């Protein structure tokens, strides 16, 4: 009896999966619909301090939240911050649970097949964090099988390593605190990540003698992620981002949360 029962159960499960997918993929809200609804929903990842983090009241604060508040203010609507994580942030945009997603959304041509990117909001300078005990001077010294990196799973540094330092070993962990702890415990020699973020992480393991190699590697441009084809929202956001750059609002928020200027400033132009 067990066997046909199993098959009968599989059928509705498969059907409901199809239904959930079909219904979940709602139409993304256009700019007009957001204005009519009076609420802008923005996805922020709270595990990326100081872009997004929880404060003592368990609210999501940080650069992303404050930037989103400026956008909502310009649009004249209320802001609703929605917590997103690395694996679910794209489904959140695709199924219209949020209007756009933040959280260091580095633009790549591969990702742009799936969602649309606005003009860049901020940059990330990639650099090498290691300890003073290690002899490395330049990031190109690290392309040997004796070097092991520890990286956060799902960050843009991982494909970069595979391409540019293919001989080095790589261990992927879940989040920044785990990666920094692994580095402090000597599980790996170095990490490649955003120099702008490193100061905060270095402060959490003060007894470790850290070293940042002063050859920056590359610049990544982080944008807002908008549902594919939502032209009306993207066009308006690009104008708003231009104004926030020109008026120094983005730099102001950045310096408040990062305790210093953006390492690679975005040069706004007349043609935004």
């Amino acid at each position, binding site marked *: 009896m*067990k*066997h046909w029962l*199993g*098959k009968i159960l599989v059928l509705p499960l498969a059907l409901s999966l199809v239904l959930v*997918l079909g219904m979940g*993929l*709602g*139409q*993304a809200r256009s700019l007009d619909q957001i204005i009519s609804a009076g609420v802008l929903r923005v996805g922020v990842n709270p595990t990326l301090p100081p872009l997004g983090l929880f404060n003592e009241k368990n609210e999501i604060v940080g650069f992303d939240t404050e930037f989103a508040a400026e956008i909502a203010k310009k649009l004249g609507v209320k802001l609703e911050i929605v917590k997103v994580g*690395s*694996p*679910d942030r*794209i*489904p959140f945009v*695709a*199924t*219209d649970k949020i209007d756009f997603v933040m959280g260091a959304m580095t633009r790549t041509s*591969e*990702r742009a*097949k*799936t*969602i649309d990117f606005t003009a860049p909001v901020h940059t990330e300078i990639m650099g090498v964090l290691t300890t003073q005990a290690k002899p490395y001077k330049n990031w190109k010294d690290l392309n040997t099988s004796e070097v092991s990196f*520890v990286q956060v*799973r*799902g*960050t*843009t540094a*991982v*494909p970069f390593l595979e391409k540019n330092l293919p001989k080095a070993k790589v*261990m*992927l*962990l*879940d989040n920044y605190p*785990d990666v920094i*702890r*692994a580095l402090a*415990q*000597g*599980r790996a020699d170095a990490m490649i990540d955003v120099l702008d973020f490193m100061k905060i992480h270095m402060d959490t393991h003060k007894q470790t003698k850290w070293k940042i190699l002063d050859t920056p590697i590359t610049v990544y441009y982080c944008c807002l992620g908008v*549902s*594919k*084809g*939502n032209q009306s929202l993207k066009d308006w956001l690009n104008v708003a981002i231009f104004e926030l750059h020109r008026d120094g609002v983005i730099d102001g928020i950045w310096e408040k949360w990062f305790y210093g200027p953006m390492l690679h400033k975005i040069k706004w132009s007349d043609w935004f």
Partner: protein
Amino acid sequence: MNYTIHFNLIWKYVPDLLQGAVLSFQIAILAFLGGMIIGLVGASIKIFGGGVLRGAVHAYVSFFMNTPQLVQIYFFFFALPQAGILLSPYQAVLVGMTLNAGAYLTEIQRAGFLSVHKAELEAAETLGMSLPQTIWYVIFPHICKVLFPPLSNHYIIMTLGTSMAAIFGVEELTGRAFNVNAITFRSIEVFIVTAGIYVGITILASAILVFAGRWLFRVKGKVF
């Protein structure tokens, strides 16, 4: 609909995912076999052992059954280095999962021990068998047969539980799925394919268990 499902954009990553699936399968099998041995010893001590040993097994079982497996592996991975013991990600996950499985399998096998008829144990005693001989020749074959369904279930749960290893830098199926997702942003397609592979490996494991059961212990079971 602003999201078009394109499975063809992730096909090239499927071989990579399948390699991860092999690793998931391997971790589950090793941890299960290790857990079975710990469980057999633990159950024997719980039934036949004396005060101190029994207390120790009891403490081990309650600790591992009442704390989350994730926290246990965190302990092996991040706390032990402070004491100078540096386990690799694979070792930490394997040790954590084996000890966790050992605790559950101790309890499952203890139930099996209790299901053996007293007359059989008395017969073994009459034949002059020592306690280890009785456990190995009389009780173990018996509990394998009686416990085949719950043991198989636990094995399947463990196979799915290997996804936790992704957090600790083991490149098994879930970890690789997250990697592909980060590169392509094709979350829906990637996780549908990954779920499909998990269904595949659990069906494969069930099939192996059913045939092993029929061949070794003459237990009748069906894959579906």
